C-alpha cells in the first residue's frame, strides 16, 4: 500500500503519513484507530505499545 492510498483511506494528508512513518508525529487516538482498522489489527499491535512500554521502563 502506498502512502497516498493510506492517506486517502484514513482521510489525512500524505505529509501526515510521512511524519508518522518517521516517528516525528504522534497521531490522535482516532487516527491510530483508523490506521489499525485499515491494517486489520489493533492499536496496541500497530504501535507495539507493550514493547515500547518495556523499553521505556528499562531506560528509566
Amino acid at each position, binding site marked *: 500500500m502506498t502512502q497516498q492510498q493510506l*492517506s*486517502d483511506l484514513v*482521510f*489525512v*494528508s500524505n*505529509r*501526515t503519513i510521512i*511524519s508518522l512513518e518517521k516517528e516525528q*508525529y504522534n*497521531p*490522535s487516538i482516532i*487516527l491510530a484507530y483508523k490506521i489499525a482498522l485499515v491494517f486489520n489489527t489493533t492499536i496496541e499491535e500497530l504501535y507495539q505499545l507493550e514493547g515500547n512500554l518495556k523499553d521505556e521502563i528499562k531506560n528509566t
Partner: protein
Amino acid sequence: MKLKIHNKKGFWGGAFLLLLAVFYIPTLMNNITDMDTTMRIGKTILIITACALFGVTGVYRGINSKCAKEDAQEDDERKKLVDIKTKSSAFIVTFLFSIFLALVLAISIGITKNNNFTGIFVGVGIMPTIMIIAYICANIYQNKRN
C-alpha cells in the same frame, strides 16, 4: 443550476480577496493619471493580480467538491498542530523581540536624554503588555472551554 459551497472558509476567503482586487482598481485608475508614481502603479498592479489569482483559486476550490475534499484532507490534525505550534513560536519571538527593542530604547533614552525616543519606547513597550494580557485572557477562556 444551484451553486453549492463545499468549503465555506476557502470560498469566502477567495471572495474577500476578489472584492479586495475590485476595490484596488479605483486606486490604480487614480495613479495612472499621475505619471510620477510608476512604483506605486507597479505595486498596485501586483496586489490586484495576486488578489485576483488567489481569489479565483479560493472561490473555485470552494465550489468544486473534489478540490474541497482535497483541501479538507490536507487540513488534518497534524496541520492543526503545526499551526498551533507556529503561532506559539511567533508569539514568543514577537514578545522577546519587543522586550529587547524596549530595553534598547530605554537604554538609548538614558544615555542620550533625547525625548524623541520616549514616544517610540511607549509604542514598543505597550506591545509585550498587551501580549501578556491577551495571553492571560486566552488562557482563562481556553481553560473554561476545554
